[in-house]
């Protein structure tokens, strides 16, 4: 959502915009989210802000965009100190932002969305909306910057990549010279990502500067002119794009990390999970999984690649008995799971890591110990149908905390006090701490720091090597390619193809966009 610029015709600035952040400090209670941050963004450069989740990148950008006010330090635009009390001030100074979660009205057209917040009217402030003018503005801006958008299309009909383009056009019609892109590639296919990078390149050629927030090293290396690495609210270094990925990762995490998943060849056995003709609806009753067949064998990792929202969530929830199966079968070693309760499915040797950890994975008010038995509290040795065995539960917690390197003050601390990575380790430790036939992990490393990612990947490979069938769903293609022995690409509720992880990324990327071997399927 962009606030309106000052009324009247948009003025054009002659001088390209140079931005300096000097000593920006922001505190939330005891937490120092930003600690004396100094950054200079030169005109026409792509400046990447690299850091893990929670490093303070978004907080910094929210101050730059007027959503938060710094406790200390100043924002200097073209050698002039500025105070931004709201996004309106930031836009007036030539700074625009595209948020990670798009701020578009799905049932409005592209032109309406772009005009929203800065509507031109005929006949005074209460007059008619000047839709023609809005359309014209959109067409002009989109031509000028080479960003094709259809002004009359409804947002809800557009693919994500196009929606993002609308957001960028919207910012550009406000005549900004510096664009903040907050994790812009999180929801894009590899092809859409490439397109976005090209757009960014051409914008900088026209003198615009871009602040690119991300934690993806590959993209940073591809596009950035300069890289600033943030860790725990501080700048820990600047780097040039030819720094190696390993070096950048080490800067981000603070120690050397291995980005490759180390694993030997798989030794697939019997088919453990057999899904045939599965049909599932989403919450709104719209078909989300539309006839999926897949098979996961013992001792192999099947990865499901795909842009988020193509039915992966519903597929996994249906397997787990959390969502109604409309048609088809879900077989676990030949036993039909469809219609079984989630408890029974878990009890028949299925481990499940849900994609949204804080929503479905943990009870934040519960202690680490309690969360570690969330789905085993009424089973020996932790208890029975009537009572819990507190000492066994505490003993189990101590064991898991050590084994899975869960960083917590004590096993009695509430899980909500742990970092995202450690919360995820609690979920993984819980699900792996019983004999499994099938292990399902949805987005196993989302919002998890790089150091923990390495550990979680190792655990998943270890589970595979013990002969468990593993199903990994991830919207991070790197993760799927790294972990999987076979990759199923999901698009619009169907499995388009099952490919080997050695398949070129471009090919998998095309499949994720719904394009199968020259036979293009239009969105």
């Amino acid at each position, binding site marked *: *959502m962009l606030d309106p610029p000052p009324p009247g015709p948009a003025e054009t600035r002659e001088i390209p915009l140079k931005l300096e952040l000097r000593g920006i400090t922001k505190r*939330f209670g005891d*937490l120092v*989210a930003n600690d004396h941050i100094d950054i200079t963004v030169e005109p026409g450069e792509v400046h990447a802000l690299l*850091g893990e*989740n*929670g*490093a*303070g*990148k*978004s*907080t910094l950008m*929210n101050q730059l965009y007027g*959503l*938060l006010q710094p406790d200390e330090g100043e924002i200097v635009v073209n050698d002039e100190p500025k105070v931004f009390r709201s996004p309106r001030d930031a836009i007036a100074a030539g700074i625009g932002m595209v948020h*990670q*979660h*798009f*701020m*578009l009205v*799905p049932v409005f057209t592209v032109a309406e969305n772009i005009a929203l917040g800065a509507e031109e009217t005929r006949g005074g402030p209460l007059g008619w909306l000047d839709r023609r003018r809005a359309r014209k503005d959109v067409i002009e801006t989109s031509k000028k910057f080479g960003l094709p958008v259809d002004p009359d299309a409804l947002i*809800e009909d557009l*693919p*994500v990549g196009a*929606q993002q383009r609308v957001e960028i056009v919207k910012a550009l019609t406000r005549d900004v010279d510096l664009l903040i892109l907050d994790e812009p590639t999180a*929801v894009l296919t590899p092809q859409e990502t490439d397109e976005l990078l090209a757009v960014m390149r051409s914008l900088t050629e026209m003198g615009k500067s871009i602040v690119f927030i991300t934690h993806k090293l590959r993209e940073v290396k591809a596009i950035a002119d300069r890289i600033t690495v943030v860790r725990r609210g501080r700048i820990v270094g600047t780097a040039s794009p030819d720094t190696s990925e390993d070096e950048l990762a080490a800067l981000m995490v603070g120690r050397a990390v291995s980005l490759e998943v180390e694993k030997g060849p798989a030794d697939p056995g019997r088919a453990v999970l057999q899904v045939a003709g599965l049909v599932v609806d*989403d919450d709104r009753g719209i078909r989300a999984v539309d006839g999926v067949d897949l098979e996961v064998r013992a001792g192999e990792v099947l990865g499901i690649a795909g842009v*988020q*929202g*193509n039915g992966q969530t519903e597929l996994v929830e249906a397997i*787990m008995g*959390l969502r109604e199966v409309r048609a088809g079968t879900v077989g676990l070693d030949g036993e039909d799971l469809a219609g079984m*309760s*989630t408890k*029974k499915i878990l*009890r028949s040797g299925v481990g*499940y890591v*849900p994609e*949204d950890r*804080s*929503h*479905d*994975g*943990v*009870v*934040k*008010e*519960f202690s680490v110990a*309690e969360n570690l038995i*969330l789905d085993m509290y*009424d089973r020996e040795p932790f*208890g*029975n*149908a*009537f*009572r*819990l065995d*507190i000492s066994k539960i505490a003993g189990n917690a101590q064991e898991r905390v050590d084994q899975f390197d869960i960083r917590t003050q004590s096993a009695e601390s509430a899980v909500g006090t742990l970092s995202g990575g450690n919360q995820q380790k609690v979920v993984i430790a819980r699900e792996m701490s019983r004999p499994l036939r099938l292990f399902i992990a949805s987005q196993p490393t989302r919002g998890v720091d790089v150091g923990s990612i390495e550990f979680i990947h190792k655990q998943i490979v270890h589970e595979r090597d013990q002969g468990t069938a593993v199903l990994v769903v991830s919207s991070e293609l790197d993760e799927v390619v790294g972990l999987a022995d076979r990759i199923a690409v999901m698009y*619009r509720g169907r499995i388009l193809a099952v490919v080997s992880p050695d398949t070129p990324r471009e090919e998998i990327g095309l499949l994720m966009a719904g394009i199968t071997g020259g036979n293009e399927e239009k*969105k």
Partner: protein
Amino acid sequence: MTAETATEKEPVEKETFLNVFLRNLWSSNSVTVTALSIVLAVIIGAVLIVVSDSAVLAKFSYFTARPGDALDASWTLISSAYADLVKGALGDPQAFSDWMSGAGTWQNAFAPLSETLTYAAPLVFTGLAVSLAFRGGLFNIGAQGQAVLGCVAAGVAGFTFGLPIVLNLIVALIAGALGGALWGFLPGLLKARTGAHEVITTIMLNYTAGLFLAWLVIQQGIQQPGRSDAISKVVAESAQLPSFGGVLRVHLGIVLAVLTTAGVAWLLNRSAFGFELRAVGSNPHAARTAGISVAKTYTLLMAIAGALAGLGGATQVLGTAYALTPSVAGNIGFDGLLVALLGRNRPWGTLLAALLFGALRAGGNRMQSFTGISLELVTVLQALIVIFIAAPALVKAIFRLRAARAAGLGVSPAKG
């Protein structure tokens, strides 16, 4: 593909005002806040005592001339009022020394304490009914209706069956619990099956229960023979909760209340069902994902909460009233809400809060007859305590929602 499915699911749930308020209510309510609220209520109560006494107030008309008069009179009034409150609740030192010197009886010395425990006993049960449900994420406003049904079932069982001693009492208590359980089970089932909000259904069932009781006590076979007013037959002596008799009205109900508190504490913290209900209360999504049936938990939880409130009603009939009247349950269900709030939804805290409410009520009786201050002051004190505990949460909820709206974009400052 729409924006909704494409963008990442927002992890923060949309919260209603009620949710924010209630969560703040329980979380901001520390022991310190509770203690300070009581102190503040006592201070404001003192002001009200002075203001409501015309004789003392008259002395304030020449306050500038002789301030000592007004202050003296105020202090005397306030101190004697609160002294009577304490004496009426815990015991009069005079009565104790009379007993020691042989001039009085031990019964008289312990009578105030006995009154406190008598008033507290049913409140323990109804308080537990509310706090247990709340730990499972349900706001049980229906403790009143459940207690009324408990009264009805225990009362009718008490004068109908004519079973031998001990057995008759046990049957009557079980009947009371079942009556309340039925009245809790219904909204629980509706919530689990249809999602009907328990606040609405339990409030409606409160009326149903109250009107049913009023109708029932004038029916033939229930109404006391020879009486034209609304009162039922008297509960058989074998079904009454044993008490000391005479001025000591305190009965076995308070012992049952303490045992029940221990039972509820065990249920919450040590039982499999307690684990389920706490998980469902804190995060129903995660509970469901871990294989806990949320619907089953809601239904069972409301039935258990209802049974607790029903037992509260049963102790009222079998221990104090001995017969059904339309107002036999008094306000014990609604007071249970306040008791649960004051007790911070913990079983032992609820017990203490019920004792405090019982003490205020017992002391209020003496204050009314000795100092001439209306019993309503006690209600005001109770209300003030609750307001002081609730107000910070209310204020926070209002400002939190406004702040969230002002930020508009749903930006969470704590995030990366």
